[in-house]
Structure formats: C-alpha cells, structure tokens
C-alpha cells in the first residue's frame, strides 16, 4: 500500500484508500462520541426540565409504538369535527375495509395489514368532547392492543384548525415487525399519516388528491394512484 505522504503518491495526490480509511476512522469516532453523549444524558435527571414539546415527539424508550401527527386544515373546527365520523371514514381512510358498530361507542374495525392479511380491531370510544377531541381504547378481544385520540384545536390567525391524530399500539411482531410493516407500507403510523392527509385534502379541496395518470409502464392503470 502506498504511503499517504510519500512522493510516490504523486504530487500530493492523496491515496483514495488512505482517504477512505481516514473517513471511516472519523465516522467511527463520531458514532462513539454520540453514544458517549447519549449515555451521559441518560445519567442526568432531566425530569425537572420543563418542555413545551408535544408528548408524542419526546424521545422516550417504550415497547409500545407511539405516533402523533398534526396538520393544519383550512376549515373551521366545527366543520371538521362534524366530518370526522364513521360513515365518512371510507372516503379518506384507504386501509379501512369496514367499520361495524357494536353499540355503546364500540366498533369492530377491519384493516388491511401487510401481505394481503386483514387485521381486526375492537375499539371503544372512551371520551368525546364536542368540537374538541375523541379518544378511544381497544377491548381485550382486539387483535392489536391500541389507543388513540384525535384533537381539533383552533389554529392562530384565522388559519383554520390544527387536527392532531395520536396513536399508540403494541406492534404484533415487535420493533422488527413494525419496520417490516413500514417497508410494506402497511404500518399503522404510515397508514394514519396518509389518511390524515387525505382527510385534509377532502376537507379543503372536496376530493382526495390523486396523481393517477397514464405512463408507459404496462402494469399501471391511468385511473389508479401509484407512487
């Protein structure tokens, strides 16, 4: 191997291998430093430090998957609360196959899962405050234990409403399973985020946005959306 500093390396031209080695060393040192910082942070008691960050954005280790997404929707809060109802879910919840009311605020949900499977949830509404929030909690017979909340709050300066969807669930196959489901685009976080965007589109434009159009790819139809 050529010496980085030897004249044979040619007029100060650095050996690419040597450069790569230096780069790899720096990257390694950086990763080590990041871990060290993380460990030090973990030792410090931070509970007394106030934060205004939404709770779902805090970096807290947990076996449950927690996800929250807030979107600005340019419509009054009352309109949006009124539109967030089971009968309209099929218009914007792409992965929901069916919602079957069982009475008393409990419903049985059929949802598309990874690889053509269907997942059945049984959820009960635990709290509903007119024009503000709807919370739910799954029943023991639900295939996936989950809980969540949708919030409606006035956005400042007459901009409409902040709609926030918060979802917590126990990933059936742990963290790895969750990653796999994400890759297959059938993970609740991915689905919920996209459904929330579709709700915004429907409320603001009267239709769910679609880029469906022709292409020279034989497998695609001009009326089906594609990535």
């Amino acid at each position, binding site marked *: 191997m050529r010496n980085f500093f030897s004249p044979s390396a040619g007029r100060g031209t650095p050996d690419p291998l040597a450069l790569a080695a230096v780069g790899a060393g720096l990257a390694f040192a950086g990763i080590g430093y990041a871990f060290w910082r993380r460990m030090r942070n973990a030792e410090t008691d931070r509970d007394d430090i106030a934060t205004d960050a939404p709770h779902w954005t805090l970096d807290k280790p947990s076996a449950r998957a927690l996800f929250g997404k807030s979107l600005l929707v*340019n419509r009054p809060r009352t309109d949006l609360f009124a539109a967030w109802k089971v009968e309209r879910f099929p218009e914007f919840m792409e992965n929901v196959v069916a919602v079957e009311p069982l009475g008393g605020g409990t419903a049985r949900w059929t949802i598309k899962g990874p690889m053509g499977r269907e997942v059945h949830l049984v959820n009960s509404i635990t709290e509903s405050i007119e024009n503000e929030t709807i919370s739910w909690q799954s029943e023991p017979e639900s295939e996936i234990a989950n809980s969540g909340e949708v919030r409606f709050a006035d956005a400042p300066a007459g901009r409409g409403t902040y709609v926030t969807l918060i979802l917590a669930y126990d990933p059936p196959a742990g963290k790895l399973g969750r990653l796999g489901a994400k890759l297959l685009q059938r993970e609740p976080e991915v689905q919920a985020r996209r459904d929330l965007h579709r709700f915004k589109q429907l409320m603001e434009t009267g239709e769910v*946005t679609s*880029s469906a159009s022709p292409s020279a*790819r034989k497998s695609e139809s001009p*009326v089906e959306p594609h990535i």
Partner: protein
Amino acid sequence: MRAVTWQGRHKISVETVPDPEIVNPRDAILQITSTAICGSDLHLYDGYIPGMRAGDIVGHEFMGEVVEVGSGSTLKKGQRVVVPFTISCGSCFFCEKQQFSACDNSNPSETRDASELLMGHAMGGAFGYAHLTGGYAGGQADYVRVPYSDVGPVIIPDDLPDDDVLFLSDILPTGWHAAVNADIEPGDTVAVWGCGPVGLFTIQSALLLGAGRVIAIDHFPARLRLAKQLGAEILDYKQVDVREALNEMTGGIGPDACIDCVGMESHGFTPDNILDQVKAQYYSVTERPHALRQAILACRKGGRVSIPGVYGGFADKFPLGQLMEKGLTVKSGQTPVQKYTGQLLKMIQDGKFDTTSLVSHHAPLEDAAEMYRHWHGEQNEYTKIILKPGLEKGAIEAKKEMAHV
C-alpha cells in the same frame, strides 16, 4: 395516445400509452396543441432529478383544447387553455396566500413522504416532473389530465396564437417572478446569469419593473444576441472576468440585484465547476452552482439575490460567509404561476413582451427524442423548441422558416 416518455439518463422515447381519464370531479382533459421543452427538462434528461421512473410522461409547458370535464370543473369543452406547470388546489393555507407552488394538497399522500424526507416539507405537485412532485403525467403527449381545473388553466381568447401565450405555463411567469423577487428599485442595475428562455423573460421583466440597466451573462452567441435585442447589455464570460466587468460597470459597487437563471448545471471551465462536474459524475453532489456562487460574490453589499434556477439538493462550497457578511437578501422558489397569469396575459395582449423571437424550432411530438438531443447538445442554435402533436413526423420548422419572424 402518443406521449414523450423518460426512460433513463439521456433516453427519451415516444410511446403509445393509455389515454388519461377523469379521476376526480375537478379534473379536465385537454387535447394538446402546443408543448415546449423546458430547460428544467434537461435536468431530468441528465438524470439529476431524483424520483423519476422509467416510463414517466414528461412535459410541463403545454396548452390545448378542453375535450372532457369533471362535474366540478368550471371549464367548457372547446375552450383553449394554457395550464400552469404548478398543480394547486386553490384552497389550502399556501394557495390562499398565493404561494401556489407550495400547495399543500396537490402532492398526493402516497408520494409526499419521500418529498418531505428530502426537503423537510413536501413540495407541491407539478406536471411531468418526478415523483417527488406527485408523479403526474406531463403534457408532452396527445392528451393530459389536469387536476383542479377550476383553479389553474388560463382561458385564451381565440385571436391569440399558441406561440404568443404558451409560455404563460412556466417560463414567462418564472422570469417575471425572478424579477419581482429581486425587489428592483427604479434605476437599479440588475445582472442576469443565463440567457436561456427564463433569462430572456427575466431581462424583459426587470426592465418593465423599472431597472435602469440589465446586464446579461452567457456564452452562447445566439442567446447573447437575443438578450441584446431585448435591451440588455451583454457579457460573454469566455471573454471577460465577469465579476471584474460587473464592478467596472458599476463604479466598483456591483449590481444591486443578481438573478441566477442557470440552476444546477452551470457551464464554464472554472476550478469550482470542474470539481463539481467530477463529483456529479459519481452522484456525490447534484448541484453545480458556479453561477450562483459568482452571483453572490458579484452582488453589491446589501443587495438582492433571486434564484429562479432549479436546484435539487445539497451544494458544496456554498459562499455562506460572503452572503452573510455582505448582508444579501435571497429569494427563491418554484414560481406561483397562478398568481401572475391574469396580469401577464393582459401584458401580452398589450404587447409588453416579446414572446416569440426566442422560439427557434417547431417540431412534431414524434420527433421529441431528436429534439431533446438538440436541446441538450446545441444550445446556441436551439433556443426554444415547441412540440406540436398535430405535425407529421419529420416536419421540423426552424426559425427562419416560421411565419412570425
């Protein structure tokens, strides 16, 4: 129908594909009469824009006749319309602020994730321009589906020929927006990098907005000649040190506003650009921003830098200290086309703009692959190409044969 498709780097082909259909109530379908090849189509051609897929239909500068409408469209069959390249819903926070290119609804939920990952927030939708902006089929085709057709399309009076109004789709509003973003004060000296179609409209716009003089920079003689015809003083960067010339033309202070109409693929045999070229070959950078670096260094202290040129990602050796120490104001962005189309159509009718002398060729849609090669490789002779689905294959008209010259 027949459509111009992107198949890979430097691979364009005309293919038979399914016709578009009405998908949503606000949609309309157009039969294309004229569609231009844009400078930014070259970034797709060169493979520098992430998110293209083989088989995508390209083209975002187009006009045509309405042949089908959805129940929510306000257009009528038979109307001639020009369509803005930006797809905008007209009712989100951004559209209400007239920041149409930032529309929060036009990039569908399926495609916006990647866009959000790359840019921090999802870009608005656009026709024929990669899946980061929605993956909508473009208008270099016999037909195109136009979403939100009650918001974007500009209805064109019968007495205006296609060539006069086609550029309302992109490059005229883009040149106008570039000049508006330069916050021109009466008598200002404005420097414009790049005398391509956007640069030529920027020159005209800057003068209309009160610039005392416009200095245009390029290296293609034909493009510099067009700039001069439109009222600019010209600099060929192969003959002069541009920054020295600009200083000497402005008593040493530099231009008040500098506009980068070049974007991510700067030409020029300079050390920074050569290094960028090498890196771009290995995709370790997407940007070759030599013109922008030069514009920042050339601009007067406290001046304005406007960037209509397209960039795709992270840039190396960006003169950030120079930007800060000189106290420059930077404005940029994809053009909110819908904000300007009404005003600019009126200005075209009043004869304020020369919209035709930059057009060098009319060509059939069928000859698109050949036209992309010329547009890429012969930028002196090919200053703007308009594709016409109606022309027979091989019926290419160069400028001197066209009726309007």
